């Protein structure tokens, strides 16, 4: 009887031990996920990884952008932070790394460089170490409703230079059409105007220069005055100061305005948020670069855009980096490309991008003298927020260029 009991205890202990050994390493992702198709594609990649990597279990938690931004600081300071988080690089990861919340994954640089280009890795190098990897690129440029332009007697060539652009705006307005749509409520769509003008007036390194030399440099003042001049034409829809991003891009999809300076996500968003759910017909929606013909210190070809990537948090298991390498590779990212869900940065993914507009985006980024990260991301959350405020105030004619420089300097110094 005693032996039987001992045997049962030994068996149970053995099972417990085996259970402990067989327990999966869990890798938890926290990401921005407000597009169902995108979430589904991501889940399919995770499912395949989990199936082919016994002993590792990757899970994900999607959140809305703003919710994630406000929740992240608390999560990172908890005892149980997620292992991988959505990140846009720039000032965000600088602050997170300074606080000691990011893992140094420099050891994985070579394996990541086998699947993504140097720029995707470089975007996540801070303070001399690698803390993540970019997997997605985006481009901001002019989106034009061609029939409305035709109706106003404006050609695409008219929009290629800044002077021509301003004249075209007036011509479109005179034809009874709203020239430009944007969102002064969410503000970030307006910042693209100021950033592009800064690059044209100040060159490829303008953002680094304002950080080191101050915002009151002449190139910034010129760019701010350019934006004020645009605003004086009254180019935006009547409700631009209260329209949020989705409303304004929906109005663009409805044909309520001729031009939107937006990112490549707008191809889908203008249709999804249009009243008919269809938006502008593909042939009528034309993508063109931001005008040149100012000082053009960026060669007139600099572009503005974003990178979306992943930062690895302190204490994350090595499997997290292994999964990121798998996720960033062309075999995984081609699923996003084939579904027209953005522009993956994976090496060799171009062949899977079939949407002509996305192909144009890839080509334009390839030809750019510089691809500048969104200003609000580049400057970090504090000064970035002030940048968005200033851009809207300039466009609304509520602030002078000098006041804008002073406000940004103050925000930067007290970030």
């Amino acid at each position: 009887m005693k032996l039987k009991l001992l045997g049962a205890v030994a068996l149970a202990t053995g099972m417990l031990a085996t259970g402990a050994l067989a327990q999966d390493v869990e890798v938890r992702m926290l990401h921005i996920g407000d597009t169902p198709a995108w979430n589904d594609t991501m889940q399919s990649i995770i499912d395949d990884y989990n199936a082919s990597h016994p002993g590792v279990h990757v899970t994900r938690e999607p959140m809305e952008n703003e919710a994630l931004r406000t929740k992240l600081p608390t999560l990172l300071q908890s005892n149980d932070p997620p292992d991988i988080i959505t990140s846009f690089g720039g000032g965000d990861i600088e602050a997170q790394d300074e606080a000691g919340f990011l893992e140094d994954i420099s050891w994985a640089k070579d394996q990541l460089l086998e699947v993504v280009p140097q720029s995707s890795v470089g975007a996540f190098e801070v303070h001399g170490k690698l803390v993540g990897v970019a997997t997605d690129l985006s481009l901001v440029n002019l989106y034009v409703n061609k029939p409305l332009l035709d109706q106003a007697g404006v050609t695409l060539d008219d929009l290629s230079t800044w002077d021509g652009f301003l004249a075209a705006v007036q011509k479109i307005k005179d034809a009874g059409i709203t020239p430009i749509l944007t969102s002064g409520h969410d503000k970030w769509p307006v910042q693209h105007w100021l950033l592009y003008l800064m690059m044209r007036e100040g060159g490829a390194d303008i953002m680094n220069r304002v950080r080191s030399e101050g915002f009151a440099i002449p190139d910034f003042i010129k760019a701010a005055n350019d934006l004020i001049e645009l605003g004086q034409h009254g180019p935006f829809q009547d409700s631009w100061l209260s329209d949020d991003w989705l409303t304004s891009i929906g109005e663009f999809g409805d044909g309520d305005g001729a031009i939107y300076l937006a990112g490549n996500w707008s191809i889908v968003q203008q249709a999804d948020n249009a009243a008919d759910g269809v938006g502008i017909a593909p042939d009528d929606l034309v993508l063109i670069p931001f005008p040149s013909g100012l000082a053009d210190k960026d060669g007139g070809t600099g572009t503005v855009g974003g990178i979306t990537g992943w930062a690895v948090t302190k204490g994350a298991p090595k499997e997290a980096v292994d999964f990121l390498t798998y996720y960033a590779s062309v075999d995984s990212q081609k699923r996003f490309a084939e579904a027209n869900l953005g522009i993956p940065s994976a090496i060799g993914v171009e062949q899977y991008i079939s949407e002509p507009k996305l192909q144009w985006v890839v080509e334009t980024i390839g030809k750019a003298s510089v691809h500048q990260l969104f200003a609000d991301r580049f400057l970090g959350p504090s000064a970035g927020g002030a940048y968005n405020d200033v851009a809207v105030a300039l466009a609304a004619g509520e602030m002078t260029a000098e006041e804008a420089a002073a406000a940004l300097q103050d925000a930067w110094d007290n970030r």
Partner: protein
Amino acid sequence: MMAVAAQSLPYISSRRGLRGWKTAAIFTAPALILFTLFIVWPVIEAGSTSVYNWNGLGAPRAEKFLGLGNFQQLLGNKTFVRALGNTGLILASSLLIQLPLALGIAQLVARRRWGSVAFRLIFFMPFILADVAAGLIFRFVFDGDVGLVTQLSMLFGGGEIHLLSDKNLAITTILFVATWKYFGFHMMLYVAGMQAIDRSLYEAASIDGANAWQQFWHVTLPGIASTIRLSVFFAILGCLQFFDLVVPLTGGGPLNSSHTIVSFLYYFGIARMRVGYGNAVGVTLFILCVIVALGYRRWIMRND
């Protein structure tokens, strides 16, 4: 024997006193612990970090110590000064429009007559609605392109009305929605107060020849004076903490023209990861609330 008894009395009373203290400590400990954990500790934390330039990540660093720097920046910030003004405006509209309106309607629906219960419910319903939902509903109502206000304007031959895009009018829409949303709550307080007034006072006043206005002025108002003081107290504190309607309705815009103290705290402190700065706003608000609450209870509600 008497001497012994007299000597032992202080001993007995000190033992009793000790036992009393122990009992008090046992019974107050749970509440004291909760109060310390959820009120005192966060206030101390907020206060101690409000003197740093701190982004909320990790512990505040010594080299980022600003002293009263965050508070000085606040006073020099035009948006914060405007937020203070807006909060004052909301308070003024609450005291001068919302509460008198609530009192007037309470007078109409307090007595039991046909439909009064139904009207009480109808007027109280906006208060039941979540603030965020109310804000979103009125964002559609005031939408300059397709909203109800614009539709009505166009029906009468007018044009589109973009109230939420106008930096001078956006705060007015917030005042309107706040009045619509909260007057029902104060009305209910007044109704409860009015129903507690002894009916014989009205009968006596009536026999003495008092008309309706005189009855209201000399019987009703004194009868619900303590309720009014309580209602004003709630209104003041509610205005100081006003936030939930601002976010869905205007987000503090356009051009940061419709922020209140708390929405300023959220957008300029939390969302921009300037947590030390945000805590300076929080501390300022806390001090304001404490001064108002203690002062009001000391001087206005001292007999209630």
